[in-house]
């Protein structure tokens, strides 16, 4: 027998335990350590982006108060805030962080299939982050082209960071994509090849499904960003005219001829829209597992949930031009993209109904992860509904350049995934660290974040209807806006500063927990999925000790009638589960 199924290999055969500090925590090939490295890096860089958003809000809420914010800085803040949050925080955290931690543990594998490649993926990601951060410090500063980096503005004189800033941005993106590809190939292969015995595809927890399909999307969509980044680098450094039209900039003719800025938009959004779902699908999956576990009830419509994820993933590739209505297009195209955009709401709505129906008559435990999950349902419905407005060409045109859009995408793509990130961290923290955190502090963190973000983004919808333009450094003479618009803006800024400060509670709680938190139970939430059934707590290198688990049931056997416990772990055989009195 020369072939041994990968998942069946012996612990000793394949996994040499790391023994030095360096191999254990720095150049680690263990998926759990890599996940934590990804997570910490992403959160740290996310904190920078959070700081930038506060600076931005200070200018908007109290214009002319802060002399250190000039228009150039402001545009740099906006650009870097958006880029970091979408790519370097959310994408990296959901796939590099949670993907790395959860896929092998939930599928019952010892590690990723290619641990070395996995390690390389993290260090390449770190390199992309360092290049990104370096762009703050080069001459001219980081790019201020807006996170979509539209040409010709992005590489025309007058835009902040037009020299080195934009080059570093594009190089950093290219390096990030290389890192993601290395990680992504690993996630796909591990899900397909290294599941333990009995773990059929349809027994996988929805978290794994979400991460898996998001990875497929990422692998197919990130090349579009790579292509646009490379072509823009050509335009910038080699003076080609892929995107750059014949423009005269500040009285000078830079020598470009007839390129197409719209071409860039197509490439960018061909990546950009799937990117929304690269972030959203893992969040969908994770939230499904959290709701089911803390409501002690099987997920409603599991098979429908899986197929909704797959269908959303497929559809996400044919809606991209709804980001380009204001760029102008053939009305038939507009009609097509509006239609596909509205169709994608159907599987998404199915998911929302199923989450709510999972809660229906559940035995709901309002613990911290559950609070964040329910909060997510609110913000996601909210942001999703405004998406239906904006998906229509005629409604999008007047609203597209206003705060309505800012409110929409922050609700649906900012607040919602971040609530899931927090929920997931609170949920898996005991497994990752072996420690518990302070529940009360966690609940305060939730309520202040949840209500605070509503205080930020709800008023923005009204500002948008009133016609307050987004992207502006200062309003200037806008007679059509009532004075109260500025009052509202000031209130939003106060809420934003409040919410940003509230995040301290999270860090205090987690640092306290690490230092002196009480030891947690191996399975504190009585969850069924495999990661809670590891022989060691927290799981050691190789995850499963000597024997791999065998899976006998799906991930949602909660409150099964006739059994003693209200949960049956996936690795408990049919005849092994303790039968209750009523049986």
């Amino acid at each position, binding site marked *: 027998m020369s072939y041994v199924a990968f998942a069946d290999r012996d612990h000793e055969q394949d996994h040499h335990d790391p023994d030095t500090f360096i191999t254990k925590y720095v150049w680690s090939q263990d998926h759990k350590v890599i996940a934590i490295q990804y997570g910490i890096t992403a959160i740290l860089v996310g904190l920078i982006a959070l700081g930038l958003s506060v600076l931005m809000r200070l200018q908007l809420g109290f214009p002319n108060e802060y002399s250190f914010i000039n228009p150039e800085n402001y545009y740099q803040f906006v650009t870097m805030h958006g880029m970091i949050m979408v790519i370097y925080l959310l994408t990296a955290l959901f796939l590099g962080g949670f993907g790395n931690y959860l896929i092998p543990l939930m599928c019952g594998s010892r590690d990723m299939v290619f641990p070395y490649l996995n390690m390389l993926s993290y260090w390449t990601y770190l390199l992309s982050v360092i290049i990104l951060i370096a762009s703050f410090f080069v001459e001219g500063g980081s790019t201020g082209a807006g996170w979509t980096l539209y040409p010709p503005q992005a590489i025309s004189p007058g835009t902040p960071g037009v020299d080195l800033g934009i080059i570093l941005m594009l190089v950093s993106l290219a390096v990030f994509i290389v890192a993601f590809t290395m990680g992504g190939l690993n996630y796909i292969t591990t899900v397909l090849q290294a599941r333990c015995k009995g773990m059929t595809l349809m027994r996988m927890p929805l978290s794994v499904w979400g991460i898996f399909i998001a990875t497929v999307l990422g692998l197919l969509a990130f090349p579009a960003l790579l292509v646009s980044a490379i072509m823009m680098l050509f335009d910038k450094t080699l003076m080609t005219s892929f995107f750059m039209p014949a423009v005269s900039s500040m009285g000078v003719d830079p020598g470009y001829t007839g390129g197409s800025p719209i071409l860039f938009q197509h490439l960018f959004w*061909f990546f950009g829209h799937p990117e929304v779902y690269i972030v959203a699908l893992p969040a969908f999956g994770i939230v499904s597992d959290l709701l089911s576990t803390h409501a002690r009830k099987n997920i409603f419509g599991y098979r429908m949930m899986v197929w909704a994820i797959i269908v959303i993933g497929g559809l996400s590739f044919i809606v991209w031009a709804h980001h380009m209505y204001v760029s102008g297009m053939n009305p038939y195209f507009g009609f097509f993209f509006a239609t596909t955009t509205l169709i994608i709401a159907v599987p998404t709505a199915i998911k929302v109904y199923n989450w709510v129906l999972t809660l229906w008559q559940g035995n709901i435990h309002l613990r911290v992860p559950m609070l964040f999950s329910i909060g997510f349902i609110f913000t996601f419905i909210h942001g999703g509904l405004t998406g239906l407005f904006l998906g229509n060409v005629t409604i999008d045109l007047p609203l597209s350049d206003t705060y309505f859009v800012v409110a929409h995408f922050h609700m649906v793509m900012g607040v919602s995934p971040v609530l899931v990130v927090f929920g997931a961290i609170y949920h898996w923290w005991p497994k990752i660290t072996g420690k518990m955190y302070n529940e009360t502090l966690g609940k305060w963190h939730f309520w202040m974040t949840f209500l605070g973000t509503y205080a930020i983004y709800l008023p923005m919808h009204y500002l948008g209807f009133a016609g307050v333009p987004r992207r502006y450094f200062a309003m200037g003479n806008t007679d059509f806006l009532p004075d109260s618009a500025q009052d509202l803006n000031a209130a939003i800024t106060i809420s934003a500063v409040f919410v940003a400060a509230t995040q301290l509670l999270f860090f205090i709680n987690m640092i306290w927990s690490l230092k002196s938190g009480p030891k947690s139970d191996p399975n504190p939430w009585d969850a069924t999925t495999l990661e809670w059934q590891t022989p060691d707590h927290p799981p050691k290198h190789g995850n499963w000790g000597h024997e791999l688990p065998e899976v006998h049931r799906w991930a949602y056997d909660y409150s099964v009638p006739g059994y003693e416990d209200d949960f049956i772990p996936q690795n408990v055989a049919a005849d092994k589960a303790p039968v209750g009195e009523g049986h």
Partner: protein
Amino acid sequence: MTVALVFLAIILATLLGWLFKQTLNAAPWEMEAVSDLAHHGPLGGTIDKSKLIALLAFMAVASSFFALILSAYALRMELGDWVPLTEPQLLWMNTAILIVASIVFQWTRNAAINDWQSRLKPGLIITGALTLGFVLGQFIAWQQLQNSGQLVSSNPSNGFFYLLTGAHAIHILGGLYVWARATLKFVAGSGDTEGIRRSIELCTIYWHFLLIVWLVLFGLLLST
């Protein structure tokens, strides 16, 4: 974007078809005997097959990359300032070299599978030399273009020519890295025949893939 969409539709249809078979009739909430199939992926659960799957996935990523450049090519071509580029004749020879390299690699692979050790060394070395020759030939074609005043910024068609050939060459160099590792292992007389055979098998697939990509690119460049 039609090229990218057609390509994507093929990839997604393949994936969906496979998922459909796996998932449609499953009723995961019902208990059933543990299926032994479960941990054998679509091609069986060995590490060999895992590497094959990773390679196939990477080829999908690379195809997506090239399909998107081709989409951009098609869109950009329609604008007024496009002047078709006359490709250097040398490309024909390079193409022939790459075809021969693929054939020799296939021959080497067959030898590796059947354990005909004596063929491995010449096979590996000839393949590598031919492939390096292709990359060098591409580079010379660049030089010829440059010397005739066809710079990267002269026209968008030139820009695309350098971009496409450069991107393709980088993918080839990546393949050559794996080839070099396997060859060095073999020449150094490492006993890891399994590992070398595996590398050769996977490299052969990758070589054929890059040949097909090149033929598509070359055909497009010639016809426009």
